[in-house]
């Protein structure tokens, strides 16, 4: 469960804090995730779930402990690690006239991989087209992203991360803006990604659209992991509720 040599994500006694914060947000967290695992991170608001994802993505300073993703120490080599990490953020608000089309935004996901001083290739565009198709955005690929609904914008951000061909996929509340049918479609897609060996970590309060496969449930409370066990999708909601109440 923790510290295995085949873990693609390894957190060892990690403490994370925001600058100026009185208390650490993540406290002494140790967690190991293997390729192909589907992980649901639950817990009450303010438990540190989003902070945990940001820590794994190397976006926050780790004050103690180590975070390794795909063999990279995210504090020393965050940029190289992020080229392998897909991360769909929770809060986004695009102006209606943001001058970027869906296709351009999805392509941006590959910019880190393309590297400095290089232009995108036909392979990059193939990946973009494929991701757009997978999320059902083909008809709106030339539309400006700001003119799409919140749910459609969320799908664009998921497509952006799929086009990136990540080795680890993190999603913060991926179902929050989606209707029921789209939730199921996205859930199936995430399941396929996990089946292909890419670990999928989602922070979610919606447990009704989880794929029918083994799910690792991680419950957080006050910045600590209070539960970390394998479960069936139908039991995830109960496990999270019970653990949160018991803590």
């Amino acid at each position: 469960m923790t510290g295995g040599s085949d873990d693609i994500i390894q957190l060892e006694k990690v403490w994370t804090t925001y600058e100026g914060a009185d208390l650490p947000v993540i406290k002494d967290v140790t967690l190991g995730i293997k390729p192909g695992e589907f992980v649901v991170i639950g817990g009450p608001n303010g438990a540190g779930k989003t902070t945990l994802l940001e820590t794994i993505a190397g976006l926050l300073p780790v004050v103690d402990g180590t975070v390794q993703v795909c063999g990279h120490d995210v504090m020393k080599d965050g940029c190289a690690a992020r080229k392998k990490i897909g991360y769909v953020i929770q809060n986004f608000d695009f102006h209606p006239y943001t001058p970027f089309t869906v296709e351009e935004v999805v392509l941006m996901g590959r910019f880190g991989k393309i590297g400095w001083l290089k232009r995108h290739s036909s392979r990059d565009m193939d990946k973009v087209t494929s991701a757009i198709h997978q999320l059902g955005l083909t008809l709106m690929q030339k539309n400006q992203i700001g003119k799409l609904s919140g749910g459609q914008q969320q799908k664009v951000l998921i497509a952006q991360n799929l086009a990136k061909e990540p080795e680890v996929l993190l999603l913060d509340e991926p179902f929050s803006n989606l209707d029921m049918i789209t939730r199921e479609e996205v859930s199936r897609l995430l399941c396929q990604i996990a089946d292909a060996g890419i670990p999928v970590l989602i922070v979610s309060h919606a447990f009704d659209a989880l794929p029918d496969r083994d799910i690792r449930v991680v419950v957080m409370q006050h910045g600590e992991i209070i539960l970390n066990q394998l479960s069936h999708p139908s039991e995830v909601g109960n496990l999270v509720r019970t653990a949160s109440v018991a803590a």
Partner: protein
Amino acid sequence: MLEFLIPNNVMCHAVEAMLFASLGCALLSVLITQMNISSIGFTMSHAAFAGGSVGAFFGYAVLPSAVIVSILTAFLMGPLSDRTRMHTDTTLGVLFGTMMAVAIFFIALMQGTGKGFDASSLLYGNVISLYREEIYALAVMSALIIIFLVIFYKEITAIVFHKRLAEIAGIRVKPVYYGILFLISVMVALSIPIVGGLLLYVWLVTPAAIAYQFCNTMRNMFIMAPVIAVIVSVAGAIWGIMYSLPVGPLTAVIFSGLFIGAVAVSPKRKVVFHNH
């Protein structure tokens, strides 16, 4: 450079200065408006103003001093925003006040010690007072901005779209962002002698604001904004000198009129209503 087109030396200097300054500023205006850092215009111009007055107080040339302080401010701006965890605009507001205070402090000192300093050249500018070297510097700077935009176009678009998402994509955001701030600072300092610190803001915002009314993509904005800026600025220089009008304010007024017209006819305000 353009003597073969404009035999009148004064007119030629003015047109060249306006052409290169407007070209560089207009390209940067796209970044400034889309990254919501429009306060950078007046912060940088006041940094240059402060640099000029400090330089004059200690007996150094005004323009190089203005350039140096602008660059230092640019380098201070990014890390300061990161450290204070505030919106860049707030940091710019603090820096603006500080720079203004420094400028006034040294001007007052010079007046008190009888050194004397004519701040009007930095505040209002004078397009026909430029040396040939200053026009060359503007031309080189505009070329550098174009090269920077071409080389880092994909990184720049990603940062303009969403800095956090660009970082997540694996882009090294800080070097590119600081590069943008550096280019803005140098361009502002070099342009101040032409239109002055008070009017420069128009060039750093209005061309992109006009282009934005008609463009749906960054690429189109990068084409339309400099085209508009160069036409307006060159026309302003020619008319200003022909009819003995102040070039900077005249150009600023034309820009503002054009902006109002663009807003009035912008397709972005068109409401489509289908009654079935």
